[in-house]
């Protein structure tokens, strides 16, 4: 049960839906320790992605779909999240380029490349209270699940669960990157909006695979 372009498309559609649904939640999280636009930024970006889905060639690979997401996010989201998510999707697309079907190893490669892309662009380390705190445990959990011989859906489920825990775990942290870093101790007690949106997007990826 490998993952194909249908999965990628379901992931993308689900992403647009989840971002729209959680727009206010993400705005609120960002208002508390940032500038209150994260939900708006992602909603704008994924709305644009959704429109572009129709133009996707019928023979597009999952990598092609993710590359379209990357370029669209880069050119519509802006802020910090635009370049960061854009790079994540771009690197993810590169890691699975040309593959029509993704097996577990490909899924782990995709997630690893995405995480590395964020780190490359944003220079944040785990514990800095950024989206890296969702992506990093997700990658680790995915790798473990692969090593344990689980299938793609289970790998993504493990990644999403770890990302959710990672997002929650940003709450007690002081931020070292992004806008929340200006707050010092005052960021404590608030969840990082980018980590939260990352967890939401990974959960959708898992759901899209479970439905496959």
């Amino acid at each position: 049960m490998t993952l194909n372009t249908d999965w990628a498309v379901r992931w993308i559609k689900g992403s647009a839906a989840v971002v729209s649904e959680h727009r206010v939640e993400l705005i609120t999280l960002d208002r508390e320790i940032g500038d209150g636009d994260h939900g708006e930024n992602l909603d704008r970006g994924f709305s644009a992605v959704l429109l572009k889905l129709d133009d996707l060639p019928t023979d597009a690979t999952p990598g092609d779909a993710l590359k379209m997401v990357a370029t669209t996010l880069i050119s519509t989201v802006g802020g910090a999240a635009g370049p960061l998510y854009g790079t994540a999707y771009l690197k993810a697309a590169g890691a699975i380029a040309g593959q029509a079907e993704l097996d577990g190893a490909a899924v782990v490669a995709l997630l690893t490349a995405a995480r590395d892309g964020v780190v490359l662009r944003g220079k944040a380390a785990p514990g800095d209270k950024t989206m890296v705190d969702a992506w990093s445990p997700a990658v680790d959990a995915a790798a473990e699940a692969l090593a344990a011989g689980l299938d793609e859906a289970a790998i993504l489920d493990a990644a999403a669960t770890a990302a959710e825990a990672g997002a929650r775990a940003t709450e007690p942290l002081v931020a070292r990157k992004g806008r929340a870093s200006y707050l010092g101790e005052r960021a404590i007690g608030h969840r990082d909006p980018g980590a939260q949106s990352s967890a939401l997007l990974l959960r959708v990826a898992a759901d899209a695979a479970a439905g496959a």
Partner: protein
Amino acid sequence: MKKLINDPRRVVEEAVAGFEAAHGDLVTVSHDPIYIARKNAPRQGKVALVSGGGSGHEPLHGGFVGFGMLDAAVPGPVFTSPTPDPILAATKAVDGGAGVLHIVKNYTGDVLNFETAADLASADGIDVQTVIVDDDVAVKDSLYTAGRRGVAGTVLVEKIAGAAAERGDDLAAVAAIATRVNSVTRSMGVALTPCVVPHAGEPSFTLADDEIEIGIGIHGEPGRERIKIEPADAIVDRILAPIVDDLPFASGDRVLLFVNGLGGTPQVELYIVFRRAAEALAERGITVSRTLVGNFVTSLEMQGMSITVMKLDDELKELWDAPVETAALRWGR
């Protein structure tokens, strides 16, 4: 939320159209992607200056496009950095062959999006250099933060670098002077009230009726501390000390003193602030040689102000005094 808008998602688009209608003698506006360019750009042989960032800080940056200042401004959505596309388009539109200086306020989003645009412009053979403005002393600059924020000092960087470009300096020289302005400029702000971002519909933060936020950022980012309101003079002393100590400014210095309104503060209050700031500098033996007072780098309707002090030398003074002709800053022509 009560605002004079039609649609929260069309605020920037419509405001830029209004700006074009009002200042068509000074600028040309591109609507897709959105940027504001100086009339008759590009100017062959002149280094071009491009700045930009989230909207909501007007007149920054669009109000500073014109002779002796910016060649283009790229407004993103309210409080959100523009994407690379319009930055790239603006960069291409104003390059006159002598290269383009990107003036970028130090926020992760602005830095990353301008970085991508600069990479793409370079790939197209345009010489781009970038100067990061980070004049806000409210936030400690350390390895453990995103660094200091760029705030009102940006206006001084844009004005002085613009004058250098206008007199014919090459890209490296213009970049060097912009860097120098940033290095001798320090700012800090205080908020009395929050602002409401149109798409958010709710205040960016809440302050009690007797509270003010010391060290506020221009997007409503919290500052150093929240205190009970004090007399204006005490507030000025409180934020001037870290400004002066940071560089540090010293007795004998000549400076430009800039009191900036955050958008919703009456002018009488800005001048009450200016009065004490000038007096406090004089008490330290620092001479105020140039002045600027007004709403130049705002946070929508936020009430509050920031103080910026720039150390002057003869060259900076001369470039400050040089003619400028933009919607928001104009003298000498």
